[in-house]
């Protein structure tokens, strides 16, 4: 790939990425149709996206795990993050608790 073609590819990809993010915002600027996306049957779309992304991230990570200790530590981190999220209802604290538990498990559990 030549230098010109490389930069053309980068510019096209930057525009495509931005457009895919901007299109719904622009289309919905004066429309009220999408306001219903947070109610009724559509209320599940947001949580479903988050759950699907979580499944993808967790599965991809576990596929790369090389040891049982790694998997166990991973689940310790997930449980700690989940428990902290439920108790504090604060995602920031949950992330910190998950990282702390994951790190502690990596150190404490036998390799």
């Amino acid at each position: 790939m030549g230098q010109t073609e490389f930069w053309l590819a980068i510019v096209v990809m930057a525009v495509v990425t931005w457009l895919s993010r901007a299109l719904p915002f622009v289309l919905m600027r004066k429309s009220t149709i999408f306001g219903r996306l947070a109610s009724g049957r559509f209320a599940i779309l947001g949580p479903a996206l988050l759950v699907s992304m979580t499944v993808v991230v967790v599965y991809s990570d576990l596929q790369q795990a090389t040891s049982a200790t790694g998997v166990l530590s991973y689940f310790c981190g997930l449980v700690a993050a989940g428990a902290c999220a439920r108790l504090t209802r604060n995602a920031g604290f949950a992330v910190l608790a998950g990282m702390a538990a994951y790190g502690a498990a990596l150190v404490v559990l036998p390799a």
Partner: protein
Amino acid sequence: MSVLHNGLRGVRAGVPVLLGYVPVAMAYGIAAKGVGLSFWETVLISVFVYAGASQFFILAAIKLGTPLPGIVAMVSLLNARHLLYGPLIAKWLPPALRKRLQAAFLLTDEVFATAFHGMGHQPVNAQFAWYMGVGLTAWLSWIGGTVIGLLAGSGLTAQFPQVDQILRFALVALFCSLALLSVKRPMLRALLIASVVTLLCLIYAGATPAILAGTVSAWLCFVPGDHVSSDGGAKQQDMAGESHGAD
């Protein structure tokens, strides 16, 4: 409350994203150096393309010599899920086109997840500043991580492998906790089915189709009417996932 104050609240909400982005962006910087991209080429891709999966795909495409139309088609497919994010958070953004276009540039998976959870809890006049605080924190941490990866190279991650491993866990913990916080009891059956569909599609078709298929299957399986009693209105509102604690 001033714009700056609201923006800073957004920055605080964006810290978990920052913790997760830095090591991944470092990995991108290291990999870009590996395929022979210059410092500025690598940094400018992070600045303007700003999409993790697409950027790693660009590196692979450069390595394989993939033609331009093929790269654009794949990046479009990878970004298809973004079309679903906008409709869910657009109601919290001001109608001004310029502001919406600015907000769109910063909309990544993690920013969407954080905004979907926290934006509704901000006062109406603070929502845009809060969102920009989250978005800019994520964007700058992505650029910063890329630069660190380029400058420090693989030596840093090799020297502290466990710190790198723990920091990478931040994104998983973020998704897991935000998903848990957004789930309501009446949604459990549909979301369980969606998880299975996502997993199957992930194995056979890849990440983006899996996310889209999982979301659509949840929508198809979810019947809110079954769970609405005589005080259905209140219950419906609760199911919309708008009653969580703030950031």
